[in-house]
């Protein structure tokens, strides 16, 4: 395990605080990453509680606010910046320009396309996304592939959509794979600065 302070001080940007984003944020904190930037414009609904980290008492609150509470209750020393806003190509630069890794954790295919396109054209850092993580059962191995000259890391088989349902075991496994990708990006950067 890398032990340098700069490794875990990498600022990780996350758009989307749903099934993928909320679980990813908790995982990154537990792994030791200490600087997160999270944007989302949704509120916690009862239907989210089957796969997202939120608590029943947080229903009705903005997800970024509820997630910040959980993260800071877990690890008060985390540097967490939250943005309650919809991100697009016009406003992605300001909150995420200083990130070392950017992770798209949105849900629909159109949102993923929009956010990843904006990140790849505006930001100057590796981008991670998920596509093809649908299904009721946890895949034995969630694949990770590289696109666009290695600038985009994609978790999932790029085929299994949410038409198959997105159950807690699958989405949490995918969030773990996203966290592993973030770790690998930081490790590779440290080995080949």
């Amino acid at each position: 395990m890398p032990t340098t302070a700069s490794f875990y001080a990498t600022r990780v940007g996350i758009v989307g605080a749903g099934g993928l984003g909320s679980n990813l944020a908790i995982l990154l904190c537990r792994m030791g990453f200490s600087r997160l930037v999270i944007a989302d414009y949704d509120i916690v609904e009862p239907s989210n509680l089957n796969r997202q980290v939120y608590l029943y008492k947080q229903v009705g609150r903005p997800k970024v606010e509820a997630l910040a509470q959980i993260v800071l209750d877990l690890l008060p020393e985390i540097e967490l910046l939250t943005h309650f806003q919809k991100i697009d190509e016009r406003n992605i630069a300001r909150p995420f320009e200083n990130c070392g890794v950017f992770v798209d954790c949105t849900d629909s295919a159109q949102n993923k396309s929009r956010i990843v396109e904006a990140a790849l054209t505006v930001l100057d850092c590796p981008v991670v996304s998920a596509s093809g993580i649908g299904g009721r059962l946890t895949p034995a191995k969630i694949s990770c592939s590289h696109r666009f000259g290695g600038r985009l890391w994609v978790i999932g088989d790029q085929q299994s959509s949410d038409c198959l349902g997105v159950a807690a075991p699958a989405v949490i496994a995918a969030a773990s794979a996203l966290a592993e990708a973030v770790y690998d990006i930081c490790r590779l950067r440290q080995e080949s600065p």
Partner: protein
Amino acid sequence: MKVEMNGEVIDLVAGSTLDDLCRLLALPKKSAVISVNGEVVRKSEYGSYVVPDSSKIEVMVFVGGG
């Protein structure tokens, strides 16, 4: 003219834009990210972006879930 898309050579009429390519191949452009010769092109530019001859095009179509 010939271009390479995701490793396969395809024929494209000279002067075609990325919008033309999406129509020709029935690509769901709202779910796609496309790069031409290593540069990602924004959807807002698909209508005016003329694909150069012998280009290498990469198309990724996302599916929902998360």
